[in-house]
């Protein structure tokens, strides 16, 4: 990257300026990127978007006070004003003795994470995404004549570079690539419309699912929902397909946010090292996962990423921390400072996934006499403070081990601690969508609200 040196120098200049203005510590988070995407409709291009973008965020500590500014204006005079603004703003915040940038001990050496950059993506023919989108649309329509429209079908790629530099001696950067495809078809039987979506995003082009498969899967998921109805309110076994299980995993990970736990604003407060689920359940955040979408050598404040088992064989193993929260909680940062140039670090996940079990999804469904297989959900519906979970759900009703008929307009609800205990089957079909992955999981029983 010939540009790397130029921007590292720019970052150093900004840090120097902030220090001259009175900051004891200063840190730059800089992002550069270019992206391109398209959407199609009825066999033609609907739109094409191309862009380059950049931005810089500056975090300063002055007399234990925290200041932050960001800008996308890289003009040298503007940058000086921007650095001054960050320092001046710090005086409006309260001093906190734990404020401070990651120390050299926190920073250590960036992790070896292998390749994040696919030269194939950075040199793709611009029309690949048009061809791929048209193919998704064609394949979707071919599934069934009841596929009448698409809410959206599109594809694109992105090349992004991150540079972090701080007055504590850290300078690091990495560049990564991404390519994505998605399809959201709409099925109609004349009385009801049903939509579904399927997508894939990868750092490496060869790992993307085929356009044909994405279009087909999305259409199959939409068509099978036609004729969906409510069911009676009841308690019954509930199975989440891998996409919905991944969404549940994200919710559980947000309860493991070290800051929420420290403030006793999480239902996980006081539960560390306790058994909270069956031994078959392991929830991992792995910033080192080879070729993972969320993989990086260091997090948003330069701390090396690592593998953290949030739940290890059913035991609550670790919370997730950035440096500031780790200091408050008297523990070590876990490399989970999520970031954009427009924000201060906040705790987030890297590659989050539920480890797969040994059982096939078919077998997990077959064991259910009367239950609900959930394939889509609506609403946030999870309260991290109280542990209440209640979301709108669509999917298929299971009768005698078979997916029998489509269901909509119901909710599934439970208490998340109880739900974790009630997971009685974990599938072998780990599926990543983006940086979150999960296999099929089954809850012994949840409350379904309908008629």
């Amino acid at each position, binding site marked *: 990257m010939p540009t790397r040196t130029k921007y590292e120098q720019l970052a150093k200049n900004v840090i120097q300026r902030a220090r001259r203005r009175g900051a004891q510590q200063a840190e730059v988070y800089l992002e550069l990127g270019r992206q391109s995407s398209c959407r199609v409709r009825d066999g033609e291009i609907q739109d094409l978007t191309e*862009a*380059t973008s950049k931005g810089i965020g500056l975090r300063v500590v002055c007399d234990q006070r925290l200041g932050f500014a960001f800008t996308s204006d890289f003009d040298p005079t503007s940058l000086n004003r921007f650095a001054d603004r960050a320092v001046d703003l710090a005086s409006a915040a309260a001093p906190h003795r734990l404020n401070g940038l990651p120390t050299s001990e926190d920073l250590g050496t960036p992790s070896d994470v292998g390749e994040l950059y696919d030269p194939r993506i950075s040199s793709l023919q611009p029309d690949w995404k048009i061809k791929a989108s048209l193919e998704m649309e064609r394949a979707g329509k071919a599934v069934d004549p009841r596929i009448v429209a698409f809410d959206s079908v599109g594809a694109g790629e992105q090349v992004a570079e991150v540079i972090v530099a701080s007055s504590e001696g850290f300078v690091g950067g990495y560049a990564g690539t991404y390519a994505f495809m998605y399809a959201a078809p709409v099925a109609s039987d004349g009385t009801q419309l049903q939509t579904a979506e399927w997508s894939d995003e990868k750092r490496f082009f060869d790992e993307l699912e085929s356009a044909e498969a994405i279009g087909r899967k999305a259409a199959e998921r939409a068509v099978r929902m036609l004729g969906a109805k409510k069911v009676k309110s009841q308690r019954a076994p509930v199975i989440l397909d891998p996409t919905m299980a991944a969404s549940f995993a994200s919710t559980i990970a947000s309860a493991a946010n070290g800051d929420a736990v420290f403030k*006793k604003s999480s239902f996980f407060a006081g539960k560390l090292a306790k058994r909270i689920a069956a031994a078959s359940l392991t929830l991992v955040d792995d910033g080192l996962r080879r070729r993972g979408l969320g993989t990086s050598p260091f997090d948003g404040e330069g701390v090396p990423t690592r593998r953290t088992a949030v739940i290890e064989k059913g035991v609550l193993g670790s919370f997730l921390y950035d440096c500031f929260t780790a200091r408050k909680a008297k523990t070590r940062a876990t490399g989970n400072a999520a970031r954009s140039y427009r924000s201060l670090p906040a705790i987030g996940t890297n590659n989050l996934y539920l480890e797969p079990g040994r059982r096939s999804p078919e077998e997990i469904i077959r064991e259910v006499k009367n239950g609900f297989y959930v394939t889509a959900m*609506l609403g*946030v519906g999870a309260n991290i403070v109280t542990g209440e979970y*209640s979301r709108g759900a669509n999917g298929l009703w299971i009768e005698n081990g078979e997916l029998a008929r489509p269901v909509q*307009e119901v909710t599934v609800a439970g208490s998340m601690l109880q739900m974790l205990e009630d997971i009685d089957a974990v599938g072998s079909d780990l599926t990543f969508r983006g940086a979150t992955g999960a296999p099929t999981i089954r809850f012994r029983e949840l409350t379904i609200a309908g008629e």
Partner: protein
Amino acid sequence: MKTRSARPGRTALQRLPAMSRPSTPLLPVGMMEKLLSAAMSRGADFAEVYVEQATSTAVSLEEQKVKSAQTGLTQGIGVRAISGGKVGYAYSDDLEDEALFRAAQTSALIARSGGATQPVKVSRSPSPMFYRVETPLSDVQVSRKVDLVVRANRAAHRFDPRVKQVMATYADQTKRIWVSNTEGRFAEDVQDLCRLAVRVVAEAKNGDRRSGFYGGGGRVSFSYFDTFTPEQVAAEAARQAIATLGAVDAHAGAQTVVLAPGWSGILLHEAVGHGLEADFIRKKTSLFAGKLGQKVASDKVTVIDDGTVANSRGSVNIDDEGNPGQRKILIERGVLTGFMYDSLNAKLMGERPTGSGRRESFRHMPMPRMTNTYLAPGDDDPGEIIRSVKSGLYCAQFGGGQVDISNGNFVFEVSEAYEIVNGKIERPVKGATLIGVGPEALKNVSMVGTDPMPDPGLGTCGKDGQMVPVGVGLPTLRIDNMTVGGTRV
């Protein structure tokens, strides 16, 4: 489509006289004209240049301390070229000439018919003025913003010793936009927006924890917080948390529900609003497509989207395509009367734009969006509505919501709810979620209160990943046979 945030507490709406205040554009008008010309160079039918400059400030407080003060500057340009129904879009945060022309030429590539470069001339069109902010929020001293969160924190802790955690944030933005297009329009706007929000966690002796959330703001002057005080906001957030300590589990199943006025308007936003946006209608992916003139709700239901509400969070003097904000009746006494159009969908459908073309920033193409969406008041006394219910659920405060446009399924979360027994509000209930199909829920509206109420100004709506500020509003409402998600069967 998701909407987040909280609800009520503002008073009478009042129209301000129309006028506009010209400013010096971030890019000279002559440059915009040249870029329009470049975007048309391959034979497009239409081109548009959107320029934006936004300054933001935020302060946050947690664990009794002002954690940080932040500021940001974002500026950039988005160029759109349209050829038939196809759109080429390019954006750049680099405002050097070379980058600007590259963006314009990239957008031009959507048209392939060749064609010669023609000069383009634009002239300033006046914008109406639905919000007047005396001093741009970006010019208000940070110390005054810090003072709001400090006062909110103090008031929340003083409310009750069971209040254990208080998180207060104040955020504002002063956004300037300039839009010019090949129809000769050049329009501009200054869009100030602010909000104060307080989240409280209370803990009872037995370890039961509940949270409360409240806040508000809008396109208002900073002096707004002289009357909408941080003490008021904090007390309401704390009240919610304390009131729901010891709540019982919600019953699952069909019930009669009564919605408190204000932020409950999110029901309308999700249940029907999104489904009336013209892009979904044109693509026939909304269940409201082809239903114009048909009965889609009970006689008591009149739904309006109004971008002209004075100082409201969702209002726009001009939308992000330069068209003036408008008031549109979408459903009148149960009959579907109109949709919300941006200029592209309006053109393709032979309609007129309704001031509904909005975008999150220069990084995004505009699309049809809601502004302030509310239900017109009815004839029923709010107290009488509650007394009319033998057994049901009173929904006082709400979390976020979401809708599936195609099957019409929507959910929204009830963060503060009570049992109604024989017309009286009784025990607090936890973990309730409402779910329904938009038109069915609107047909089951049996009573509409006389008490219209806008939400306090916290709503942010997401569509295709683009977030825009919106307002919602609803009078007290009774809906029969609504499915309540809960854990008790």
